[in-house]
């Protein structure tokens, strides 16, 4: 039951994240949406590892089934790469803001069509 609730929450998070990613025009909001969607994916992986009445995957914590350790290992990778790529993407947003003076995607596209305004 907890596993199902976590899966539902993960799907909701991914939905919210992608909604923000598509609808918002500000680049930083888009990155935030992408990060929320990544959080949903991470929660989904953790929910996959869940088994009813499971204990943490550490030897010697008592009897009973242990949670699947492989998704946990995958999640560790996902979190680190998520943080790293977010930092790099923010650097690009800083660059764009310095040079084009906007974070609005629509304005960026319009300027791209008309030619960039000369400073």
């Amino acid at each position, binding site marked *: 039951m907890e596993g199902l609730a976590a899966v539902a929450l993960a799907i909701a998070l991914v939905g919210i994240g992608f909604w923000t990613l598509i609808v918002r025009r500000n680049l930083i909001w888009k990155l935030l949406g992408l990060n929320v969607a990544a959080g949903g994916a991470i929660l989904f992986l953790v929910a996959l590892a869940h088994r009813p009445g499971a204990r943490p995957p550490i030897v010697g914590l008592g009897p009973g089934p242990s949670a699947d350790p492989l998704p946990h*290992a995958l999640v560790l990778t996902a979190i680190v790469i998520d943080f790293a790529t977010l930092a790099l993407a923010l650097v690009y947003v800083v660059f764009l803001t310095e040079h084009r003076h906007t974070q609005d995607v629509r304005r960026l596209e319009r300027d791209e069509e008309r030619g960039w305004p000369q400073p």
Partner: protein
Amino acid sequence: MKALAAVALLGLVALLALGVSGVFPRPAVPSGEDIAAAWGAENVVAAIILGVRLWDTLFEILVYAMTMVGVKLGLRLLRWERPLPPVAETPLLRRSADLLLGPIVVFALYVAVSGHLGPGGGFPAGALLGTALLLLALAKGVERLSAEIHEPTLEWAEYGAIVAILALTGALLLVGRRGSAHLIAANLLIALEVAIGAWVVLHRFASSRGEV
């Protein structure tokens, strides 16, 4: 072109369905206890990320280091016209940083060293160390802290940590020796690498805007 894309997509779906359907025999997966015992660990997740999936972790660290280099070089290209305002000193933050820094560093070392026995490992320890640096940066100001901890040495330490992780994993994979000592060494190096990477991000973003 469209037909080609449709065929490719359908083929992908068919491959997925074939993989899920159970036509092919599944490889036997050893139990978590066996994996942990084989690598001299009690934390099965640590045994997986530093043992069975060592290559995965290695390239993850490489991706992390590459993005940190990207952040460093990318923000170095920007020139800021306004000089950055100096950070106001707050005695409260100074005192709490003095009090908390030691326990945080000790706890981070504990998490790194005991990562193969319980919850923990190199990545959380690195995040903790990065938090300690963030606390110091809040108390002292980023530029002063950067001058005090001698940034170029830190960069060389980061590259050194990457080289050491590569050497350690190479030796581990070639020799085939397994044991807790390797896991502890790998966890400590990963903690160092992650902490320095976090510091690089913090320092570059803060010195680009003068906040923190």
